[in-house]
């Protein structure tokens, strides 16, 4: 096994890993060698084509088809230089005060999270899109939402030179989204941080070394070959930062021979989501323009958030319940479809956790609690009201039987859409806001890390990603992940003298 020596080893290059890499990069000038190990490949700008299967296969874990243990929910997360920031939509919100208060992590102050978030909002060019950039799909949400009595807000987004291709979740073909692949990682590399792609960390050892497998570029696959020759490596470090994401980090720590806290893997949440569609009488602009410009936040009151969205042919067909002629007719109405994403604000629940199988692969155990299902149903009812208020002829609601609701039944949506029709395994539920598993807290009795991402009892091991969340954030998470990763980096700088000695 080839050996390499660095002072700081960061595992994962997404929202968390990219942030830590950039924040620690100035230490390179003082002779500190910093390495980022990323399991996925580094794609060239021209490789982002917007073609659904091609990009999903190249960017997502399991091509976007990663399922929970009982197969009732698909989890979307990316595996590439930049992690899930390559496929996110770039909506940029700061953590709500009530959520940070509810997390109740000693030393975690909402004002501190906001201050750090603001730094990244500036760095990532976060702003509101002008009216010219908005498509009908978004405008109808605003009109319908206001008519139906909801408080509709505009999403700040982190784009620069957005052409409105609507391909955000397949990676931006115009390099407009300001993910860590565009901002933090290139900055870190300019300062001398090394990033090695196609490098999967198999385990972290007690002597602070990490065992890495560097893979070959598959024939015909996208992305550059790894910066290192394929093979197995032992990388000796002094500080190790796990930033593999809410599934990657718990799984890695679970398969590592380390004295980690017993609650490792617990507290997984993910904002389970439904893609809803409604048919309008005329064609609307939906597959052009930035897809996600507005939202309705009913998290505190009704456990759901609604967002505008627009997906691709297969993803849309998969989201529509059922099959046969009625299903086909809805898919074929594509140019007339309005779409809304309903996200449930789930909460950390015993049993909803990440484990590792015999081969060390992550297994996500997730059970829908009645409260989560209620959030999805209430969100579906609200969406149906918005769709009809916007002029839709028909709404597809997976919690109705039959799922197609005609405009003449618009006044009855509350009676038609109910938890009674919830059938796990029948409805397509997916999630992209994966959180928890290495939650922050007081001690090893209730958490995996402290408020600086330090794993209890293992001061040289830090966690810096969405797995730090002790419970769900109830809004889009990437800015908060960056804010927490920024804290982790500060903690490392403070402890560096001692740890690097």
């Amino acid at each position, binding site marked *: 096994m080839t050996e390499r020596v660095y002072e700081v080893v960061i595992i994962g290059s997404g929202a968390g890993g990219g942030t830590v890499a950039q924040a620690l990069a100035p230490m390179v000038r003082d002779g500190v060698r910093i390495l980022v190990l990323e399991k996925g490949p580094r794609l060239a700008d021209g490789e982002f084509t917007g073609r659904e299967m091609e990009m999903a296969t190249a960017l997502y874990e399991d091509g976007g088809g990663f399922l929970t243990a009982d197969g009732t929910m698909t989890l979307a997360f990316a595996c590439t230089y930049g992690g899930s920031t390559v496929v996110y939509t770039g909506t940029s919100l700061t953590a709500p005060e009530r959520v940070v208060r509810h997390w109740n992590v000693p030393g975690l102050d909402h004002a501190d999270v906001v201050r750090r978030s603001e730094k990244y909002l500036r760095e990532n060019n976060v702003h509101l899109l002008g009216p010219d950039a908005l498509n009908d799909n978004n405008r109808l949400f605003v009109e319908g939402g206001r008519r139906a009595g909801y408080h509709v807000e505009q999403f700040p987004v982190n784009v620069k030179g957005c052409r409105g291709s609507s391909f955000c979740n397949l990676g931006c073909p115009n390099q407009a989204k300001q993910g860590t692949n565009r901002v933090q990682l290139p900055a870190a590399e300019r300062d001398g941080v090394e990033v090695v792609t196609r490098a999967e960390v198999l385990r972290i050892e007690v002597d602070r070394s990490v065992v890495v497998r560097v893979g070959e570029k598959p024939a015909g696959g996208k992305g550059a070959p790894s910066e290192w020759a394929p093979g197995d490596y032992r990388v000796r470090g002094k500080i190790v930062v796990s930033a593999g994401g809410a599934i990657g980090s718990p799984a890695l720590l679970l398969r590592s021979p380390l004295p980690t806290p017993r609650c490792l893997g617990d507290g997984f949440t993910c904002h389970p989501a439904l893609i809803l569609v409604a048919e309008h009488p005329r064609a609307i602009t939906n597959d052009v323009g930035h897809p996600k410009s507005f939202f309705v936040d009913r998290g505190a009151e009704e456990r759901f958030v609604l967002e505008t969205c627009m997906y*691709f042919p297969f993803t849309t067909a998969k989201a529509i319940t059922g099959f046969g002629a009625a299903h086909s007719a809805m898919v074929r109405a594509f*140019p007339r479809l309005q779409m809304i994403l309903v996200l449930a604000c789930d909460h950390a629940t015993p049993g909803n956790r990440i484990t590792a199988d015999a081969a060390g692969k992550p297994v996500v155990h997730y059970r829908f609690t009645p409260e989560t299902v209620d959030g999805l149903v209430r969100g579906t009812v609200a969406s149906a009201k918005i769709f009809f208020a916007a002029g839709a002829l028909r709404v597809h609601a997976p919690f109705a039987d039959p799922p197609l609701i005609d405009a003449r039944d618009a006044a009855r949506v509350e009676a038609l859409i109910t938890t009674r029709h919830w059938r796990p395994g029948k409805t*397509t539920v997916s999630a992209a806001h994966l959180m928890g598993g290495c939650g922050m807290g007081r001690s090893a009795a209730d958490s995996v890390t402290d408020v600086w991402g330090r794993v209890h009892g293992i001061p040289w091991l830090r966690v810096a990603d969405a797995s730090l969340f002790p419970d769900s954030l109830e809004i889009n998470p990437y800015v908060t992940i960056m804010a927490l990763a920024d804290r982790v980096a500060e903690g490392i700088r403070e402890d560096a003298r001692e740890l690097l000695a």
Partner: protein
Amino acid sequence: MAVLDPVRPAFRAVGQTVVPEAARLTESEWAAVEDIVEQALATRPPRLQRQLVTLIRLLQWLPLFRYGRPFTALDPTHRTRFLAAIQDAPVLLLRRGFWGLRTLVLMGYYARPVAATEIGYQADPRGWEARRP
């Protein structure tokens, strides 16, 4: 050997029930659908591939008890009725198995660029520029 080889006729019969327009696919169009499905399956564990084949076999032979004929010998109405019952089966394993198979069919059919055009999907990397005169 391709994963679908042992169950190809039953897979296609399910495919035509899930997406009725698939009944009009030519042999080479079916090959394109199945190629997408095979590519997706290639990266999945062999255990999952075996489970899929078992499920398709089950769907092929279960109708024998109810209709006295295998799935491929049923008319479209009975195929639809049978799959609707599976989709709503009280057993999670069956519901989720059918959901997975339905997902593969939809992937194979709608991920083809020609199907995207057929349904009026026009997204383009040039965004607004490609749409506004």
